[in-house]
């Protein structure tokens, strides 16, 4: 029953993605404008209110990673002169563009009509779009999201943000699409977003239950897919989240765990919190290392890169532009290190985790800088020792399975030994 339900939301999502890529491929003929933008701080509702189609390069990169295509793209980009230290999402995307621009589902990707760079703390994103601007010679608009250096957005930050929307982002979208800004349409879309966000949060919070009906890292990267990409505020997006919530609630009520690629994980021995993005080239193998040990992830920070909804934020249709400021400012990549530490500490406590693990990504400075310090601070505040492993996003050369498995097993055995010690 649970498996069938899981299939329903999975199938829905698969269909949505396939349809979207088909629409993107047809865009040069149908004339639908295409806007390239990034996951953190994406303005999907605004873009779609102009009847434009969003395309997210880092989603292409991670999908290429999962489908075993990223290695050759990364090498292609390195041949062009991009160094080994450059973010592998960038190299995968550039390599793909230079290898015929065939996307992860096998369809050709259209050129952008507009590059909309919503800057939320990742400097590399800026350089990435500079490269794409060179490549495509298309209009580019830059939206500067103030960094939450003090842990929150000040009123003047919001004003500054809204001013940029009014003075540069909206005019750029109007020019490229030939449509006028329609605030009512945006409000309607934001209303759907808020509903989906409620559903997603219910899904994420379900991991507080024991056993957890979801895996909040490996499973949840699928759950956040639609809301982080092209489908927030759309009818199909809402339907996806309604359906996902129903199936997770059903699993929770039946006392069942998540369904992993290796089968159901009802018998859960370890509850973990994870910081950092997953490795995509060995995603299933990485997940299996956890499920083999009966470890379930109950909360993760990576699943907040496209919005931190579980701490209360919802898109507000009554303040359509201001709410976009709050949304962009609150994305995980835009948070300072103390806020990230607070978040990890809360997760460990509220989800009653047995441990936490940092997957430090070689080529992502935006995530990795400060992680050792975070590890230390979280350990001190929770009394819970952390584990540290290293891999990469989509460069298959940086996934050393034997070492990672060794680290993870050692860590889980340490948790066991400490439990046994407490009992004695």
């Amino acid at each position, binding site marked *: 029953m649970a498996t069938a339900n899981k299939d329903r939301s999975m199938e829905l999502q698969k269909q949505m993605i396939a349809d979207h890529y088909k629409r993107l491929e047809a865009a040069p003929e149908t004339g639908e404008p295409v806007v390239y933008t990034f996951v953190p701080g994406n303005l999907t509702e605004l873009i779609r209110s102009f009847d434009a189609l969003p395309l997210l390069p880092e989603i292409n990169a991670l999908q290429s990673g999962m489908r075993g295509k990223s290695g050759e793209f990364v090498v292609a980009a390195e041949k062009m002169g991009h160094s080994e230290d450059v973010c592998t999402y960038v190299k995968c995307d550039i390599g793909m563009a230079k290898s015929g621009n065939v996307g992860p589902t096998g369809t050709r990707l259209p050129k952008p009509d507009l590059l909309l760079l919503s800057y939320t703390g990742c400097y590399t994103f800026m350089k990435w779009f500079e490269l794409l601007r060179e490549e495509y010679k298309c209009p580019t608009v830059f939206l500067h999201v103030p960094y939450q250096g003090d842990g929150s957005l000040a009123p003047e930050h919001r004003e500054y943000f809204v001013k940029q929307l009014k003075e540069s982002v909206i005019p750029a979208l109007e020019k490229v699409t030939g449509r006028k800004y329609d605030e009512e349409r945006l409000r309607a879309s934001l209303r759907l977003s808020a509903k989906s966000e409620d559903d997603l949060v219910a899904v994420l919070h379900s991991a507080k239950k024991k056993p957890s009906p979801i895996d909040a890292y490996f499973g949840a990267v699928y759950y956040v897919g639609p809301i982080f990409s092209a489908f927030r505020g759309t009818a199909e997006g809402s339907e996806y989240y309604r359906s996902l919530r129903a199936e997770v609630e059903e699993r929770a009520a039946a006392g069942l765990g998540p369904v992993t690629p290796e089968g159901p994980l009802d018998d859960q021995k370890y509850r973990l919190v994870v910081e950092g993005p997953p490795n995509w080239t060995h995603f299933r193998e990485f997940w299996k290392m956890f499920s083999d040990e009966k470890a379930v992830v109950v909360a993760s920070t990576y699943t907040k890169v496209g919005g931190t909804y579980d701490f209360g934020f919802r898109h507000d249709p009554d303040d359509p532009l201001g709410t976009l400021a709050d949304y962009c400012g609150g994305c995980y990549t835009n948070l300072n290190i103390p806020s990230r530490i607070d978040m990890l500490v809360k997760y460990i406590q509220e989800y009653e985790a047995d441990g936490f693990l940092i997957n430090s990504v070689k080529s992502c400075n935006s995530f990795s800088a400060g992680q050792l310090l975070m590890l230390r601070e979280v350990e001190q505040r929770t009394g819970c*020792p952390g584990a540290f492993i*290293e891999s990469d996003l989509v460069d298959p050369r940086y996934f050393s399975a*034997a070492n990672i498995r060794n680290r993870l097993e050692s860590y889980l055995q*340490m948790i066991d*030994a400490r439990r046994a010690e407490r009992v004695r």
Partner: protein
Amino acid sequence: MRCVVGVDLGSTTTKAVILDETGRILGRGITNSRSNYDQAVGVARTEAFVAARFELLRREFEEAAVESELGKLLRAFRTEQTLHQLRRLGEIIVAEAAVHRLEEAREGLVGAVREIFQKIGEEEEEHFAMEDPPKRSAFFRDLAGSAYTRLAEEVSRRDGISFEQLLGLYDKTIIKVENEPLELSFMDHIGGALERVGRPPGIARAVERAVQAEMVEVSGVGTGYGRARLPFPKEQIRSEILCHGLGAHAMFPGTRTVLDIGGQDTKAIQVDDHGIVTGFQMNDRCAAGCGRYLGYIADEMNIGLHELGPLAETSKRAVKINSTCTVFAGAELRERLSLGEKREDILRGLHRAIILRAMSLLARSGGVSDEFTFTGGVANNPAAVRALRDLVGENYGEKKLNISPDSIYTGALGAALFAYRGAGL
């Protein structure tokens, strides 16, 4: 007697430790790791059981006189064991030489090999006849290899037989011999050993009892890199982090921080007052600065691994070496030598470089607390120990540094202790 066994299958060596019913160490065994893991484990265990039976013998006698008799018996046992292995190796090499692809070379090679093995056998008898034989590698492959190479060189110079062909025969066969089951146990050779020492009645009776003593292995735990291949069920396999923590605690109960530098990884471990791991860090993605680094440098300098540390210790000033990448350090070494720097000064710098890498792992794992225990093969290297002592002092102040002469067995001892706890003896 009931006993438990811990096995640590490492990348360079495989170790086994046996504990008796009271948790006391009964025997230890070690061998070089090899492509056939089961074989490596088999040899290490056999060796540990040999040591255990000798320990049973020792427990029967208190007086020093008998102690020296027992020492003689042990050396006789080693002679028997080594000669047995040499005979087998010699047979295979001779068989190989007899079918050498160059027909005209066969006769000469067969004769040379026979002569070499005759001499190695004599040398081994002399070695073990000594009251206190000089220290050397405990592994058959090393002792046979170095004697064979030396004698092959002599014979080839004298008779004009190709040295390369002789070496080729050895390289081809040693792997074969290492990977076939051999009779190396106490039962296999104690009879011959007893004959060799002339069957003193007191010892002979004690040997009789040691032979008859029943040793029942009630439980075993495996650890190390090859642990997934060990002949234990999954629940009896522990990560080497936990085993090193517990093993170090057993050797030095005051231990709070453990640094283990092994062949291919470096581990910084924090333990509580029961030896339970509270945190750890390991080198990742790259094995720079591990034991293999020193092995590579020794090869580059054409000296033995065990000579590196003592040579570095003669240095008055360390040359600063920046690279901990093993291959780059080799390049740096050659450049420094060409610039006229002294070998010992460069070596001292290299030792400091690897310990610097270990220091960053220690910092990551939570620093160095009193007491601090250093384990793994590299703990036997005096220059590495000195660099560590200096750097710990500079960064964390005075700390008690423990190093056991048996530190190579730390992981296996921890595994045996887990087995002991699990067996509820």
